């Protein structure tokens, strides 16, 4: 019998069909991966399974019983536990309370058993191998710790069905590996896992079966052993993707940006030195928490440096605010697109020109014609799919949002571009387009810093790789010397134990 069965489930938002007659099942003790490009309908499917939205038609069965009028509480009671990429914890409440939320029976006037809560939280966290103070407020935890708190909560709920939506996006490889062990462990207890990820390597090593969604339809469900990576990609995009990383030969220019002994106590980085030349892409590799994003924030003036020197074309500069950084020709595409990279409610045109308002204004007054011209040219150049440049960015898919975010920085005509996880949460097709754009930009003479947690991306895109560890530079690798093993050795500080 299936743990979970969907039969001909459809869902439309307004006039847009998000899911079309999707049928899907999950067996006990199975890890069933769900892959597909952004906008393929994965998140809608997850929302239906968590009870956040209701299907327009079709049936959902859990352990053979049909679920009517689901809501998040009812679905949890039926043993469905969602675990999100951004852990959904209540920031002001303690860990113990977060673990207990939604687990305890009884109405709103029941009494809270605090010692019991703490004890159970300790036990559950021990089961996922986490050593976390149960009285600490959740907002102080690191991402991986928050993830573990969520899994502990799911275990506490005796969840039979785990929905994991990109759970490793914010984890270090070691943390991810520990998470996989936990997931495999759950399988032995008859728990079924729906596992959603863009990282096909992960899916290949973890899943028993894989289902592929495309444009709201479930195009295939296969045994993992019977399908290879290329076929999966073909199923996802409906076409073959040729070169994953575009080849190129660009003459390197002069050193544009150099850091000497850069440090910032508040963000825990110190003694960072490197340089980037015009037309060069320098990849920044390292574990999550190694200080790469923190370094980018220092360069961009979000957390100003308190030691060391930043040089632009040889001249020492002081960058204490993002505004100064932009003035000096720096651009920073941040990691968290929705919160930092775009302003979702504003139009494509307004987002595109937001950092370059000076170039489209005269004496402080906006030149709307110039704005439209710039926005339209980037829409065309980046193939941004949108009804018009007046559409709110919120209405676009993740990949198109990222292109708008990138366009914003190119509109400032920067000389240095810092890209922080430029393809995170972007589907395969858009990813290739963005890679192409990055290479074009380097060809035009930009100095590019590429921060990515996907090693193949760093290795495939970069001319050189700088590896960071514990807030400082662990070493640099040039061209052919940059291999996965070499990077991991530097990143971990010892011989790596590769999982795949």
């Amino acid at each position, binding site marked *: 019998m299936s743990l979970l069965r969907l039969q001909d489930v459809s869902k439309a*938002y*307004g006039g847009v069909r998000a899911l079309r007659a999707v049928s899907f099942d999950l067996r006990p003790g199975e890890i069933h991966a769900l892959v597909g490009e952004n906008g393929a309908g994965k998140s809608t499917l997850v929302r239906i399974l968590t009870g956040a939205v209701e299907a327009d038609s079709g049936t959902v069965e859990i352990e053979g019983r049909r679920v009517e009028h689901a809501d998040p509480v009812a679905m949890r009671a039926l043993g469905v536990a969602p675990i999100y990429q951004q852990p959904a914890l209540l920031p002001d409440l303690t860990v113990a309370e977060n673990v207990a939320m939604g687990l305890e029976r009884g109405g709103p006037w029941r009494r809270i058993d605090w010692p019991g809560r703490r004890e159970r939280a300790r036990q559950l966290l021990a089961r996922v191998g986490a050593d976390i103070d149960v009285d600490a407020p959740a907002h102080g935890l690191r991402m991986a710790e928050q993830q573990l708190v969520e899994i502990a909560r799911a275990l506490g709920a005796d969840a039979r069905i785990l929905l994991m939506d990109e759970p490793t996006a914010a984890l270090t490889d070691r943390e991810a590996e520990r998470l996989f062990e936990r997931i495999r462990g759950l399988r032995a207890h008859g728990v079924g896992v729906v596992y959603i990820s863009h990282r096909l390597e992960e899916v290949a090593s973890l899943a028993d079966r894989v289902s592929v969604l495309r444009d709201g339809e479930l195009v295939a469900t296969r045994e993992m052993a019977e399908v290879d990576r290329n076929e999966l990609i073909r199923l996802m995009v409906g076409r073959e993707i040729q070169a994953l990383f575009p080849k190129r030969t660009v003459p390197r220019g002069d050193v544009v940006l150099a850091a000497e002994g850069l440090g910032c106590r508040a963000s825990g980085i110190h003694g960072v030195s490197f340089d980037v030349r015009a037309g060069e892409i320098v990849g920044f590799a390292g574990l999550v928490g190694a200080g790469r994003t923190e370094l980018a924030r220092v360069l961009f003036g*979000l957390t100003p440096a308190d030691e060391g020197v930043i040089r632009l074309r040889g001249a020492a500069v002081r960058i204490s*605010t*993002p*505004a100064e*950084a*932009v003035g000096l020709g720096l651009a*920073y595409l*941040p990691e968290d697109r929705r*919160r*930092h*990279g*775009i*302003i*979702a*409610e*504003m139009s494509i045109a*307004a987002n595109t020109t*937001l*950092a370059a*308002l*000076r170039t*489209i*204004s005269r004496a*402080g*007054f*906006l030149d709307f014609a110039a704005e439209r011209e710039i926005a339209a040219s980037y829409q065309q150049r980046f193939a941004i799919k949108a009804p018009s440049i007046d559409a*709110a960015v919120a209405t676009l898919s993740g990949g198109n949002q990222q292109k708008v975010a990138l366009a*914003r920085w190119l509109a*400032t005509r920067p000389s240095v571009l810092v890209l922080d996880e430029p393809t995170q949460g972007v589907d395969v097709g858009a990813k290739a387009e963005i890679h192409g754009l990055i290479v074009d930009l380097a060809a035009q003479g930009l100095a590019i810093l590429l921060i990515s947690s996907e090693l193949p991306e760093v290795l495939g895109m970069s001319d050189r790789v700088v590896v960071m560890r514990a807030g400082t530079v662990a070493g640099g690798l040039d061209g052919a010397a940059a291999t996965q093993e070499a990077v991991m050795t530097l990143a971990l500080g010892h011989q790596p134990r590769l999982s795949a």
Partner: protein
Amino acid sequence: MTYERGLALCLVLEIALFASIGWNFFTAGNAGEIVRASAEIGLLALALTPVIVTGGIDLSVGSLLGLCAVVLGVTWRDAGWPITVAAAAAVVAGVVGGGLNALLVARLGIPPLIVTLGTYSLFRGVAEGVTAGVRNYSDFPESFLFLGQGRIGVVPSQLVVLVAAAIGFWLIVHRMAVGRMLRAIGFSPDGARYAGLPVGRRLGSVYLLSGMCAGVAALLYVARLGQAKADAGTGFELMAITAVILGGTSIFGGRGSVGGTLLGLATLAVLQNGLRLADLPAELAGVVTAALLLAALGANRVLQGRSRK
């Protein structure tokens, strides 16, 4: 239909209603009186529009108006400064008061609601302290009173100030790069910072501007009534905020327009004036205003919900 057109339609209907049931409502003279009575609140509302567009609020404007009026009186009568210099001093006092708000909001990052709740008491309290609550400044020179009581042709002199301020704020909010930044800050302060916008400076500047407008509004108030006292402008902040929100500016920031604020202001001013000319009790204005505000919120929500899909 856009929200603003709906509001404009309401205003036209309102005018038509009062024209039919009020005595001498639909006359040039009365239009002048409506403008005259609403000029100070209008100035405050105009200045509050960019504040609310950034997602902030300024509860201290009415109190600051009172403080600036007192400063005008003290510098002119007690210190014997020429009226023009005293007027400048009052506006400077507004800028200083706004600067205190700016400092606390933009530098220390304290929520504007809390900051201006504190300065709401502080400014009024300083005005009362300085005058011991008692002193009332009057007998201002005719040349100064012209600002509040005179006419240029048929146009009340305040209208000139109000129109100038309206055009100025319209340019700032809708036509200048600064306005774009304010919107971005209102939608997402973090997003604006990551786009390299000088968020702190821009936030500070809207509170400074709001303080300055409170200073100018104080001049209009004193010139209109011919007296300056510590209780000047009591309750004006609520009227001004009501006008802005009625005008369709979102209390959450990002969305809003100066034209809407003017329409909201006109709706309120016509309501108060019309009720009087129709011999209806003044308390009705409060009740109707409350209903209008709730209706406006509802309408805005429906319209936004529709545009999102």
